[in-house]
C-alpha cells in the first residue's frame, strides 16, 4: 500500500478516534462513540498490515498471537465484575505501557526495519523519540501495576511516603535525561536499557505515595502517559496514526484527570507529582482510613441517577428546613417529572423539629398534597423504587431503630429508604441528627453521600438535569 494512501487511512482512523472520544462525552452518543473507536482501531491495524506488506509466514504467527491476546482480553472483559472496573483499566494500562517499551526496544535493536538508520547509527531525532517513548512507556507500565495492586487491595491503599521522596524522584528524572543525552552521543545499548530500568523505578515511586481515593485521577493520568508514549513512538516510526492518537489520548487523559481533580476538590499538581504537598493532610487521611468507607457523589451523579430512574421518593428532614431548600427541591422535582420520572414525597411523622414541619415547607413550595405521603402509606413503596432522595433527613431513616433495642431511637418507625435501588443522602457531613445516633445507611453499598448544604446541592442537581 502506498505511503500516501496509508497516511490518508491513518488520518481517517485518527478522526474516528476523535469522534469516539467525542461520543463518550454524552450518554446519548456514548455507544456510537465506542463503535467509532473500534472502527478506527480496525482501520489502523488493517492499513498497517497492508502497508508493511509482509505476507510471509510471519503474519500467521502475528495473527495467532493477536487472536490469543484478543481472546484473553475479551474473556477478562466479560468475566470481570462491574465493581472491579477501575483496577481493570489500570491493569490494561500497564499492558499498553509495556507494549510501548517493547516497540521501542524493537526499534532500537533493528532500526533498519523502521528506516531509522542502522544499529549503533540511529538517526538522532529517532533516538530521542524512541527513548522518550520507551521511558514514558516504562513509567506507565510500573505505575499502572502499582495502581492496580492498590485498587485490588493487594497493596495497602494508604499513601506510602518516606523522607526525601521528592528528591529521589527528581534525581532519577535528571538521570534519565542525562542518559538520553549520552545515549545520543554513544548509541550504547547499555544506556538504553538503563533508561528503561530507571523509568520502571520512577513509575513505582510516582504512584506509591498516592492514596487510594486519588486512584481514578492517577489512572487517567497514566492513560495520558501512555498516549504520550505512543506519540513518541509515532514520531520515531513517522506514523501519523500514532501521532494523532497519541496526542489525543495524551491530552484528553490529562484534561480528564484535571477535571476529576477539580470535581474532587483536590490539587492536580499534588496528585500528579505523587502526593506532593499532601504531607500536611496525611494525618487526616490516616484518620479517615480507620472509618468505614462512604461513597461520595456529586450533583452530576445525582442528576444522572434520578433522571434515568423511573421512580424517585423524596425524604425531607430537618436539614431541608435549615437550608430552606424546599423551593429548589420543588424545582428539581418539576424537572424530573418532565423527564418522565414518578415522584412521591415520604414524610416521616417526626421529621423536622415540629409536628407538621415538612408540611409547612412543602406547602410553601406549592407541592401538591397528593404527592405527599405519610410513613404508613409509603413505606412499602421503597422496595419498588429506583432512588430515594434523602434531603437533610437522618434519624427518620436510621434502620437502627428497627434492629438495636439499646439504641435511644429503638421502636420509632422509620422510613425503609435502604430498600430502594439507590439512596442519595444530602447532608453536610457524617454527623448524626437530633438523636445523636450514627446512621449506618451512610456506609451501605447502595448509598451515595452528597455532602453539601441541601439548597446548594439541590440547585446544582437542577442545573445538571436536562
Amino acid at each position, binding site marked *: 500500500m502506498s505511503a500516501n494512501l496509508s497516511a490518508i487511512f491513518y488520518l481517517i482512523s485518527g478522526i474516528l478516534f476523535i469522534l469516539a472520544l467525542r461520543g463518550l462525552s454524552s450518554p446519548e452518543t456514548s455507544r456510537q462513540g465506542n463503535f467509532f473507536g473500534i472502527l478506527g482501531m480496525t482501520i489502523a491495524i488493517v492499513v498497517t498490515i497492508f502497508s508493511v506488506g509482509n505476507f510471509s509466514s510471519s503474519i500467521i504467527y502475528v495473527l495467532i498471537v493477536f487472536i490469543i491476546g484478543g481472546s484473553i482480553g475479551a474473556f477478562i472483559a466479560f468475566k470481570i465484575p462491574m465493581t472491579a472496573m477501575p483496577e481493570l483499566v489500570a491493569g490494561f494500562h500497564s499492558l499498553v505501557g509495556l507494549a510501548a517499551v517493547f516497540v521501542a526496544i524493537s526499534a532500537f535493536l533493528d532500526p533498519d526495519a523502521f528506516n531509522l538508520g542502522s544499529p549503533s547509527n540511529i538517526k538522532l531525532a529517532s533516538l530521542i523519540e524512541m527513548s522518550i517513548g520507551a521511558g514514558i512507556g516504562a513509567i506507565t507500565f510500573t505505575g499502572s501495576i502499582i495502581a492496580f495492586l492498590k485498587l485490588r487491595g493487594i497493596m495497602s491503599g494508604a499513601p506510602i511516603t518516606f523522607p526525601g521522596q521528592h528528591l529521589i524522584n527528581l534525581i532519577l528524572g535528571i538521570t534519565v535525561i542525562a542518559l538520553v543525552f549520552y545515549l545520543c552521543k554513544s548509541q550504547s545499548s547499555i544506556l538504553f536499557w538503563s533508561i528503561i530500568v530507571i523509568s520502571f523505578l520512577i513509575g513505582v515511586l510516582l504512584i506509591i505515595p498516592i492514596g487510594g481515593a486519588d486512584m481514578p485521577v492517577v489512572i487517567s493520568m497514566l492513560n495520558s502517559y501512555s498516549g504520550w508514549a505512543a506519540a513518541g513512538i509515532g514520531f520515531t516510526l513517522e506514523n501519523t496514526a500514532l501521532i494523532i492518537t497519541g496526542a489525543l489520548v495524551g491530552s484528553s487523559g490529562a484534561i480528564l484527570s484535571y477535571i476529576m481533580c477539580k470535581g474532587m476538590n483536590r490539587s492536580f499538581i499534588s496528585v500528579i507529582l505523587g502526593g506532593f504537598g499532601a504531607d500536611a493532610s496525611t494525618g487526616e487521611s490516616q484518620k479517615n482510613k480507620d472509618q468505614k468507607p462512604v461513597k461520595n457523589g456529586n450533583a452530576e451523579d445525582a442528576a444522572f441517577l434520578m433522571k434515568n430512574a423511573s421512580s424517585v421518593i423524596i425524604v425531607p428532614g430537618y436539614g431541608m428546613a435549615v437550608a430552606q431548600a424546599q423551593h429548589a427541591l420543588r424545582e428539581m422535582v418539576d424537572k424530573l417529572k418532565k423527564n418522565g420520572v414518578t415522584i412521591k414525597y415520604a414524610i*416521616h411523622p417526626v*421529621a423536622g423539629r415540629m409536628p*407538621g414541619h*415538612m*408540611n409547612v415547607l412543602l406547602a410553601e413550595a406549592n407541592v401538591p398534597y397528593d404527592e405527599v405521603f405519610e410513613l404508613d402509606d409509603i413505606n412499602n413503596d421503597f422496595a419498588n423504587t429506583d432512588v430515594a432522595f434523602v434531603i437533610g433527613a437522618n434519624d427518620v431513616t436510621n434502620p437502627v431503630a428497627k434492629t438495636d433495642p439499646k439504641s435511644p431511637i429503638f421502636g420509632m418507625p422509620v422510613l425503609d429508604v435502604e430498600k430502594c435501588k439507590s439512596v442519595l443522602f444530602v447532608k453536610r457531613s457524617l454527623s448524626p441528627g437530633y438523636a445523636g445516633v450514627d446512621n449506618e445507611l451512610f456506609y451501605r453499598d447502595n448509598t451515595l453521600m452528597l455532602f453539601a448544604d441541601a439548597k446548594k446541592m439541590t440547585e446544582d442537581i437542577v442545573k445538571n438535569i436536562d
Partner: protein
Amino acid sequence: MIIGSTKEQSPEKRISITPETAKSFKNLGLNVCLEKGYGESLGYSDKEFKDYGVEVLSSPKEVFLKSNLLCKVHIPSNTEIELIKSKSNLIVSNLNKEDKISKKDINIFALNFLPRITRAQSMDVLSSQANLAGYRAVIESIYEYEKAVPMMMTAAGTVPAAKILIIGAGVAGLQAIATAKRLGAIVSATDVRLTAKEQVESLGGKFLSVEGSENLETKGGYAKEASEDFKKKQTEMLENAVSKNDIIICTALIPGKPAPRIINEKMIKNMKPGSVIFDLAVQNGGNSAYSELDKITLINGVKIIGLSNIMNKLPLTASNLYAKNIFSFVRNLYSREKKTFVLNMEDEIIKNTLIKE
C-alpha cells in the same frame, strides 16, 4: 373649600377621612372639618387630626352646615341631609338608585356606581372593600371551623388539609383563594366568567368549570345572570364538589340583581358535620340556602354564617383604604386652579357616580 365628615351610625366603625388623608386634603388646598371624637371607634384621637390642621367641631350639625363636600360611608339621614348647604356635594359608598332623598339641590356621588376603568381603580370602593371582605371571610370561617386547616403529619397521626371552595372568583373571591392557600388549605373555586379560570390558577387554586359553559362576562367585567341550563349544570357539578369540601366561601354577585342562589339545601345536607359556609353575598340575598344576616345557622352540624358588615371586623384597614379611595375621587373632582369642585360631565367617573343634582 371645606371638606367635612361626621361619625357613622353605630355599629359601623369605618370612617371616611383618616389622619393620613386629612393631611393629603390639606396639601391639595382643602380645609377639613370633623365632628368631635370622629376617629375614636378606631382609636384615633382628635389630637391626631388636629395635628394635621383639621378643624374639630363640637357637633355633627356644625359639620353639615359648614362643609362644601361631605364624605360618608353610608348615606346620612334625611334630617341631616337637610342641613347641607345648597350646591354642596356629598360622597357615599353605597346608594341604591331607588333610594329617596328629599333634598334635591345637592350633588350626591355614589361610589358604588364607579365605572370599572383603569383610571378609576384608585377610587374603586367596591374593589378595596371586597378585597378585604374576601380576606376576612376566610379568617371568620377558619375561626368557626373546629379543626385545623393545614396538613400536619405528626407522630400522633396525620391531620388532613382542609378543603375550601370559593364560589365566585371576583375581587373578594380571589383574595379568599389567596388567603385560604396561604393557610395551607386545598383550594378550588368556580365562576361563570371564563377568564376567572386563569386568574384562579394564577393564585394556585383549582378551577371547577361548569361543563359546556358559555362565558357569562359583560363588557364591564361583571357577570351576567346565568341561563337555566347553565344553572342546572352548575348545580350538578357543585352537588359533587360541595360535599367534599370543609369550608365554602360564597362571593357571587350580579350587579343590579339579587345574588344567585348557588348552594341549595340538598348540598348542605350532604356536607360533613363541622363544615362551615360563609356567605359574603348574604346582603344581596345570599348564595347559600339557610344563610341569614348576622346569624350563624346550624344545619346538621354545618355552620352557615352571614355577616351584614364584615368590614367592621377590620375597620382600621378598611377605613384606610376607603379614605384613600375618597381622596382619589375628590382629587379628580377638585380643580386646583379654579379652587372649586368641577362637575366635568365628560368625565366618565363623574358622570356615572353623580346620582342627583
